[in-house]
């Protein structure tokens, strides 16, 4: 039965996710989950839907917001003044856990986001953060030597551009409004959105026309 079947089963073995004893947080989550359903506060379906809603958020959502701000100066002003209300206009619900704030890149100021204490991230708009965003190296070096970190992302800024690092230590989640690349006049909003990358909204890169 193993004829012509020479791969190594030991090497391709993948552990199950639920091996080993549950952690105290997993026990707590299961207890709450069960109680919410038993007491009729939430249904299993509502819980699954909410998890799904957050799991499926991607940077495309943030890109849509950025493109709207580029084509509509009124929207941009509202986004900078009150990010929650501006996202609500587009039907984007960021939940009640934290407030959101948009910071605008200009020819004079380049913004970049970090959380030195943990890994606070605008998940409601960008989905889950990349692994490097949570790394100790990114979190410590971005406040200590931001220009070196940016250069590693290919972002080399002139000395007359202020680098402004935002350490999101508290109740606000930040998103960078990147500068619209040159040579994109007349592009549709959808085409513009496709140019906007996750990293440009964290502030580690700047956008260039393709």
């Amino acid at each position: 039965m193993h004829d012509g079947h020479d791969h190594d089963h030991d090497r391709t073995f993948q552990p199950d996710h639920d091996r080993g004893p549950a952690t105290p947080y997993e026990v707590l989550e299961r207890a709450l989950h069960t109680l919410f359903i038993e007491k009729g506060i939430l249904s299993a379906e509502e819980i699954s839907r909410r998890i799904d809603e957050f799991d499926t958020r991607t940077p495309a959502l943030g890109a849509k917001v950025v493109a709207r701000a580029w084509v509509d100066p009124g929207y941009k002003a509202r986004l900078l003044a009150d990010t929650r209300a501006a996202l609500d206009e587009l039907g984007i619900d960021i939940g009640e856990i934290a407030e959101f704030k948009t910071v605008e890149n200009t020819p004079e100021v380049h913004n970049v986001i970090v959380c030195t204490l943990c890994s606070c991230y605008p998940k409601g708009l960008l989905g889950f953060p990349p692994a490097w965003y949570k790394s100790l190296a990114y979190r410590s070096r971005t406040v200590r030597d931001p220009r070196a970190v940016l250069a590693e992302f290919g972002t080399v800024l002139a000395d007359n551009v202020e680098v402004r690092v935002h350490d999101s230590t508290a109740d606000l989640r930040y998103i960078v409004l990147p500068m619209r690349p040159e040579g994109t006049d007349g592009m549709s909003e959808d085409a513009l959105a496709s140019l906007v990358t996750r990293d440009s909204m964290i502030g580690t890169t700047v956008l260039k026309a393709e």
Partner: protein
Amino acid sequence: MKLETAAPMRFKVGDHVRIDDRSSLGHCRTPSFVRGKTGVVAEVLGAFRYPEKLAYHRPGLPAQPLYTVRLRQNELWEDYAGPASDHLDIDIYQPWLEPAE
């Protein structure tokens, strides 16, 4: 979020503030690398339930004003090699701030 009580705001945009350099035990949102440093209030963000109490299942009231404090990188780090115009913006709760020159 509607807050029943909030501590009065002590600072406004443009005020010079010093971040306290006291030590802390347990949950705290003021990173040690900015303690004892001086900056300028860049933005008043509103009042939020205080995380140092919330983390221990207390209501965190009165809510504490939260400010974006702008620090010069070359004052934060002695050997900072970048331009003098580079800054760190960091969000600090009022109980950690005192007026500076």
